[in-house]
């Protein structure tokens, strides 16, 4: 589904990713771990098409198509979703209105009719339960005055609504207490199918107790230096990154 080859990425002339390779198949969950500043969040942003980052060389392919030159919204319509580490606030725009606009654009791209109000609300209700988010919160301006946990739950709610093929969770566990972490993880797990894939970017092994990965990759200084099974995460938790 996703194939990254020899990817070099810079921001403001600083090379961050220095020849990264990664292959993800349908139905897989991959965890990306690594110390601060190793390029984890850069990787997440670049896959989503953030134009602040410059791809110097290499390629990102999604379903066999090179998407290097695709705009962020094109990638989103193709099914790439990024759950932000720091979701932004948009005053005056409710999550409901926002996600409805997004959902219908994606449906249009997939040659589906827009959801009418009734069906939209039905779908919404179902997905709300998944992350235990209440209606009230969704009627408010996106993320404005939300607690850290509410913001992250809102990200997963949006993910549930848009049903992406590839979800990237960028440090979704940061700032979450254990209860919120369970709710969020539970939501993500329920959304897992044999067709969609997930990249979990995280600092800590803790999240991986709940969202169990098929593969764990260690990213250090812009390159994946080690890949392994979920046991690798436990090893890292015990030994740190220095031994690598």
């Amino acid at each position, binding site marked *: 589904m996703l194939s990254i080859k020899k990817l070099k990425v810079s921001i403001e002339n600083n090379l961050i990713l220095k020849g990264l390779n990664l292959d993800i198949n349908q139905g897989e969950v991959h965890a990306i771990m690594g110390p601060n500043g190793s390029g984890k969040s850069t990787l997440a942003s670049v896959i989503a098409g953030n134009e602040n980052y410059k791809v110097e060389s290499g390629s990102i392919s999604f379903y066999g198509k090179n998407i290097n030159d695709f705009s962020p919204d094109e990638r989103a319509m193709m099914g790439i979703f990024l759950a932000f580490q720091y979701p*932004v606030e948009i005053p005056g725009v409710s999550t409901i209105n926002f996600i409805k606009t997004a959902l219908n654009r994606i449906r249009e791209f997939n040659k589906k009719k827009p959801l009418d109000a009734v069906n939209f609300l039905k779908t919404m209700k179902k997905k709300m339960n998944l992350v235990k988010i209440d209606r009230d919160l969704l009627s408010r*301006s996106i993320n404005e005055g939300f607690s850290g946990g509410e913001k992250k739950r809102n990200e997963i709610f949006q993910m549930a609504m848009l049903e992406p093929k590839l979800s990237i969770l960028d440090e979704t566990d940061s700032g979450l207490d254990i209860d919120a972490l369970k709710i969020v993880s539970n939501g993500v797990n329920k959304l897992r199918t044999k067709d969609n894939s997930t990249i979990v970017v995280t600092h800590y092994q803790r999240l991986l107790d709940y969202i169990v990965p098929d593969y764990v990759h260690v990213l250090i200084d812009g390159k994946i230096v080690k890949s392994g099974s979920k046991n690798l995460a436990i090893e890292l938790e015990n030994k740190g990154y220095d031994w690598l």
Partner: protein
Amino acid sequence: MSEESKIIKEFTSKEYEHGWSVNFDADEAPIGINDDIIKFISKKKNEPSWLLKWRLEAFKTFKKMDEPNWANLEYPKVDYQKIKYYSAPKQKKSPKSLKDVDPELIKTFNRLGISLNEQKKLTGVAVDAVIDSVSIATTFKDKLSELGIIFCSFSEAVKEHPKLVKKYLGTVVPRNDNYFAALNSAVFTDGSFCYIPKGIRCPMELSTYFRINAANTGQFERTLIIAEDSSYVSYLEGCTAPMRDENQLHAAVVEIFAAKNAEVKYSTVQNWYPGDENGKGGIYNFVTKRGICFGNNSKISWTQVETGSAVTWKYPSCILKGDHSVGEFYSVAVTNNYQQADTGSKMIHIGKNSKSKIISKGISAGFSQNSYRGQVKIMKRAKNSRNFSQCDSLLLGNKCGAHTFPYIDVENKSSLVEHEATTSKIGEDQIFYCLQRGIDEENAIALIVNGYAKEVLKQLPMEFSVEAQKLLSLTLEGSVG
């Protein structure tokens, strides 16, 4: 070009939709202004002699005054002798009813999306349609008159209701109030007149649609709204003009009188031609709008969505004379390309326990300059009065400017005045967030801007709120930072 400036460019380069004009056979005054021109206008309108005298007095005052230069606006000096002060499409005979109106004129308004056909207008909006210097038609007049409501063109009011006109004309905005008000008083041509009798709640929205069509012509309309005790009316004004290379002048006066317990809601969606992307042409919009909350517990609320005009000079204001009276001002002013706007409100508190609220949302893009200028004055006798002002500026790109000039003057100790101001830019991260969800740039900006202006837009009558939202996105199409 960076991504940011690319977005800005695309979003700001949308063409003006109403830039066409129609060739009507017109009845016009010679160019320039002098006593004879004023007599010509007055005669064209068969006015009583008191009104001609009133006009001539205003002109005398005008000649002694200087054009105001305190606003944060820069434009070449207007040559008042190069403007045509009267232009009316020729109609075979003066229309008695809608049936007699020249179909070409009706077509012109249809093209603007304004239907003068009463059967088609089921939404409950009565319209007075004004082209250049004259009112063409007013719908639903009969239905409204059953309730004693008068809604007609200003010229007709002078003929049919001279007592009311004489009693109120110039009482809220005196002839010598300011340069443009004096000019308007001398040469005003048409506009709307509206009278709501005691205890009546006007069952439909009243609206006036102003259209400048002729070249080299100024539009000087005058609107007078009188709400008697315990009455209510919601009024809406819309405006467009053709695209022309020269600047055209629009100097209107609106006066509102609210008696005891009366409430008047006045909404404007101003979309005059703003000039081209290089700042050529466009309307000079120099307007004086003021309402007086004369009686106790009266309320006047201004809502404006300003997207057009090359230069805007406009401060809809409230004189809160009645005790417990309420004045409100909600504004979204958008400037793009080389547009300039100096706009805001004045709230003059005289009555005890009077309350006012100012919510101003400026949005600047391109090379434009957008200024909020507002005055809150609480007089000594206005004990326990309150004002809350919030002035927000949103910048799209880094070549535009936003300015805030608040003047606050409180003469007693029991009153409370609050002023909040913020300036923000549409963040790249906000746009990226939208894009990441599959929303395209154009819609992302529309979403963010409309969210920002929501507090004001929700004050508009439902059907216009949707229009205004579309207009905001259109005006800004192509611009972010």
